């Protein structure tokens, strides 16, 4: 299977680039970033606020079954050019990983396909690597849970 999503992160740098090609027309892909009710469906967080315009801001939240906030993120939109570009900040209030600058570029490939390039700049190399670490630890836990299920172990 081809790899549709690519992550490029150079050692010792404080940024990374994520690219992804979609089987979606450019306008449809862009729409997924604009409409709060759509964003909610694929981001997996409640969209409490999303003003898709220059100087607009947004607020995302995830709560547990008891209604306690377990994840909250917010930011300000710096540039909003429909079907082309979004620049925004992103900050998790529930974790001290600083603020990141996100530059999204949307491109038309064919009538039915499009490409997203996400350039993310962190405050420091350490903060970028912390996020890799977080997913890595989650990843090894998930992988082993799957492995154990497969092997029928119950440890």
């Amino acid at each position: 299977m081809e790899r549709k999503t690519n992550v490029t992160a150079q050692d010792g740098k404080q940024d990374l680039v994520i690219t992804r090609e979609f089987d979606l027309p450019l306008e449809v892909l862009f729409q997924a970033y604009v409409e709060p009710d759509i964003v909610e469906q694929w981001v997996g967080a409640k969209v409490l606020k999303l003003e898709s315009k220059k100087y607009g801001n947004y607020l995302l939240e995830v709560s547990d079954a008891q209604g306690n906030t377990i994840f909250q993120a917010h930011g300000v939109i710096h540039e909003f050019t429909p079907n082309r570009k979004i620049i925004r900040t992103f900050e998790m209030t529930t974790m001290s990983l600083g603020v990141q600058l996100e530059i999204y570029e949307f491109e038309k490939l064919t009538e039915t396909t499009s490409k997203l390039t996400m350039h993310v700049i962190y405050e420091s190399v350490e903060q970028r690597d912390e996020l890799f670490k977080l997913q890595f630890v989650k990843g090894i836990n998930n992988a082993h849970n799957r492995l154990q299920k497969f092997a029928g172990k119950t440890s």
Partner: protein
Amino acid sequence: MKLRIREQEISRDIFQAIAHPTRRAILALIAFQAMTPNAIADHFDSSRQAVSKHIRILSESELVTKEQNGREIYYQLNAQKMKEIDDFIEPFRKMWDDRFNKLEAVMKKRQ
């Protein structure tokens, strides 16, 4: 040739280190803050001795480093070592891949 042997040693050590659920739980615990052996052991029902054995295995794999601070020893995750694993950023890529797959599925349904 030498390089290959070294790679094998690294992956075996790391694989052994993460092969036990308690050790994975320890890694998750200290991923964001350095902790003393006692503080780590408090999170487990196993004996302090058992926990310290797991910490030792993690230390030997160099996935975990220790730092002396006064009379206390603190253990923390060694990001540098983790970068030696070929697919250190793979879980991060996978997370985004899953998220984008979902985006694609949601939008296809609406089309």
